């Protein structure tokens, strides 16, 4: 090897310095960090909106915001949390972990990786700026049902464009994940040897590619209905407002699983580590994930049982939806069997993972109840639904992201986080989240519709409890930020193994790992 090439290689080894490192980076770790920090910022912006909502709902009457602004808050809260917080957080985890888990130096398409991240700040600046436009931001719900969404003011085309941008970013991220996993695995790592996090992300990426274009199509039809005289969803012009709901939920239901499958992957990595015992049924976990992904395409209309479908349609979607309980049950049973007769310790990642299993299962139970069409006629559009999807998204997806951060943070930074603070953060979060969302089941059953800024007197008690829980949960997350940044700046040095029971290629790398993960591919036996 000549000296010249040697110098050239050295130049590539470390990150560039200054701001341009982040702007022009094609490194999977840098981009992963950007994604994670971006999603943390969005989590706090969306969370602030949630606190505005909870503050207004603290007692009956209008005290803090006008109804129209309240509707903007509920709509924006959902869009920001789904597209800005949860999805980018999982893409960030994928960026950091996939190459390290499969023994690759980086992602397959690094320049596209840079682009798919840097679209996001623009998309969300655009989306947030609509709050200051004439007529305010979107207020018709994140589901954007016409005809209501068409009443939006100047913000309308900007919202549509920002949704397009988010979709582009997601599709590029997904292409990158698939290309990386299918092409860059270390020798010997066949598909059924991949860690479950890799498997769940591979399946998630296919879901993303399948449904993000559907969303793009749906919002484009809204755009042409508003500005170019088409009548896709306008009954007066021969269109069909319900068709939008079908198209939207054909995207929307797989979207729900896009937000939970990687969470399954995270938990399936963490539980075996702290139980010091291999995952009970690896291949059945893979098949269960694939089955859930398949079923996600044939259950969409359970989000719209009350639109007046024919009996046959209602029955089909009820049965298909109930079926999801089977593979989901397989997953839960597998996690429990993995814990069974293990040798467990309860560090912060394990605590979050266990809370995930329990609270996600509670969300699954209410999901099963919602699947029963006749009962759904009562539950639909009430706080029962709000309780359900927050149980699967907050102590579900969000807890798994936190578990992942605590689990891999020592690997990423080379420092151990403060275990005591981590546990305090866990307990504050788990108490806060249950105070916040559990009473919502009762509110929904007792008849409180969702998306209302004011309510009848009998709903006061539980709303007060929920608001206390919201503020407890929200402010506890400041502690999370403190812990993360404290760990980045310093702390006890982490070994490369980090956790006694951890298995997988990422733990063979130093902590922190080299800038280009595996320059020479490891051999997996």
């Amino acid at each position, binding site marked *: 090897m000549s000296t010249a090439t040697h110098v050239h290689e050295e130049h590539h080894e470390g990150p560039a310095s200054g701001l341009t490192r982040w702007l022009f980076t094609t490194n999977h770790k840098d981009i992963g960090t950007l994604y994670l920090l971006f999603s943390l910022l969005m989590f706090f912006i969306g969370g602030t909106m949630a606190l505005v909502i909870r503050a207004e709902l603290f007692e009956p009457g209008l005290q803090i915001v006008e109804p129209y602004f309240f509707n903007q808050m509920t709509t924006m809260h959902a869009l920001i949390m789904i597209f800005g917080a949860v999805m980018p957080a999982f893409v960030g985890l994928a960026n950091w972990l996939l190459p390290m888990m499969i023994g690759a130096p980086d992602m397959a398409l690094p320049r596209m990786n840079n682009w798919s991240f840097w679209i996001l700040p623009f998309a969300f600046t655009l989306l947030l700026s609509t709050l200051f436009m004439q007529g305010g931001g979107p207020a018709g719900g994140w589901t954007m049902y016409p005809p209501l969404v068409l009443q939006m003011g100047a913000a309308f085309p900007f919202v549509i464009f920002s949704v397009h941008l988010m979709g582009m970013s997601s599709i590029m991220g997904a292409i990158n994940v698939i290309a990386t996993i299918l092409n860059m695995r270390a020798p010997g790592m066949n598909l059924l040897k991949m860690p479950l996090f890799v498997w769940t992300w591979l399946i998630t990426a296919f879901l993303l590619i399948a449904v993000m274009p559907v969303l793009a199509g749906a919002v484009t039809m809204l755009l042409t209905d508003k500005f170019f005289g088409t009548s896709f969803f306008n009954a007066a012009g021969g269109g069909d407002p319900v068709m939008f709901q079908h198209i939207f939920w054909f995207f929307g239901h797989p979207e729900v699983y896009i937000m939970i499958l990687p969470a399954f992957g995270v938990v399936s990595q963490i539980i075996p580590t702290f139980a010091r015992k291999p995952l009970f049924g690896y291949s059945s976990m893979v098949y269960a994930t694939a089955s859930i992904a398949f079923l996600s395409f044939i259950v969409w209309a359970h989000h719209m049982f009350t639109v007046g479908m024919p009996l046959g349609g209602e029955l089909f979607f009820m049965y298909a939806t109930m079926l999801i309980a089977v593979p989901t049950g397989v997953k839960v049973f597998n996690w429990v069997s993995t814990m069974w007769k*293990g040798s467990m310790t309860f560090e912060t990642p394990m605590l979050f993972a266990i809370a995930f299993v329990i609270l996600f299962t509670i969300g699954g139970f209410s999901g099963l109840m919602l699947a029963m069409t006749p009962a759904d006629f*009562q539950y639909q559009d009430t706080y029962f639904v709000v309780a359900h999807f927050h149980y699967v998204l907050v102590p579900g997806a969000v807890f798994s992201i936190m578990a992942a951060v605590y689990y891999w943070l020592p690997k990423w930074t080379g420092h151990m986080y403060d275990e005591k603070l981590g546990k305090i953060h866990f307990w504050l979060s788990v108490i806060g989240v249950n105070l916040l969302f559990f009473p919502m089941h009762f509110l929904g059953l007792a008849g409180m519709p969702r998306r209302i800024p004011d309510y009848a007197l009998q709903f006061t008690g539980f709303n007060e409890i929920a608001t206390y829980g919201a503020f407890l949960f929200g402010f506890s997350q400041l502690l999370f930020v403190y812990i993360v940044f404290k760990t980045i700046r310093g702390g006890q040095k982490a070994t490369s193994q980090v956790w006694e029971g951890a298995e997988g290629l990422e733990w063979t790398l130093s902590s922190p790992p080299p800038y280009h993960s595996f320059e020479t591919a490891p051999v997996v036996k």
Partner: protein
Amino acid sequence: MLVNFLARLRGVAIIGGLLFWSMCACADYKLNMPVGVTDTSRDVYDLHMLTFWVCVWIGVVVFGVMFYSMYHHRKSKGAVAAQFHESTTVEIIWTIVPMLILIGMAIPATRTLIAMEDTSKPDLTIKVTGYQWKWGYEYLGEGVQFFSSLSTPREQITDDSVKKDEHYLLEVDNPLVVPINKKIRILTTAADVIHSWWVPDLGWKKDAIPGFVNDSWTLIKEPGIYRGQCAELCGKDHGFMPIVVEAKTQEDYDKWLASKKAKATQVAAADAVDREWTKDELMAKGKEVYGTICTACHQANGEGMPGTFPPLVAGKEFSAAETMLTPLREDGFLSDDNKIIMGSVENHAKIVLHGVPGSAMQAYAEQLSDAEIAAVITYERNSWGNNTGDVVQPSTIKAAR
């Protein structure tokens, strides 16, 4: 330990809560779905409780195993990890057993659903129309129709020092009156955006969708007053369009229907007469119509809301998206520097009768009579500092239709 304790606490809370609920079903602190007053609502309630208990028992077993394991199989207690994994038999068992449980739940669900969808042979049909933000009820074949909107005074909503009614936000000016023990078919549709008609005690909700007519049915067994709300986000005042159903005995219902019919013919007769109305008459009637129909958007003081609902006061500035300003300018209600001006009576009538497509302004031609539209236009042109002096006669509106 703490996890264990907290989860047990929650279990106790759920069961305790349900017991508490069953002991005082009439208390304000409701925890569970109402049993309701129809066979359907009872079936739905039973299905809900069946699924609930299935979930509780699965939860008890799964979480029980988990907590046992977390307590006993911990490293601090010296547990050594077993290394077993993969068992096809176990996997098959925990696939088949849930399938069987699901089938057990699907059977009653299917039966209930089939009964709910059978809207044949009704004794009475009522058409329910959702508007932003009120409900319209029409008794088909009886010639009776009316609007039903929130009757809670505005001060109770915005001013915390004013005491709230017992049925705050769940009270209306004109309730839907129905007879008991009659199969009532309810058709739902909407005039503007999607709404959803929901009275929990009847056991279902159904979306009201513009351009579609959905049908459902109910048969109420006990006289009483049953309250509900719009359940589909429909804009600014979605939280303020309640539903009140008053179920009466056949005899009382007949009386009510007769008086409603008599009143309708009276009003129609008075409005239909081709006579000159005085300005005072028009202003008084206009104020009433404005209060029930227009205030939700244009506000009681006529100043609207920036960006969404234009003011009706001449000289007020209105800034909004171009798509919203253009039709106003074309009709002569907006100056080039975006100030409201009073356009012609002709265009004013056109907007009220036919609405502004693509905006929240509905067409009121079907909803309001000539006299009502004439009155409200007269009122708008002579209030809040508007002093056109115009007196719009019902005959003018009749001609403009």
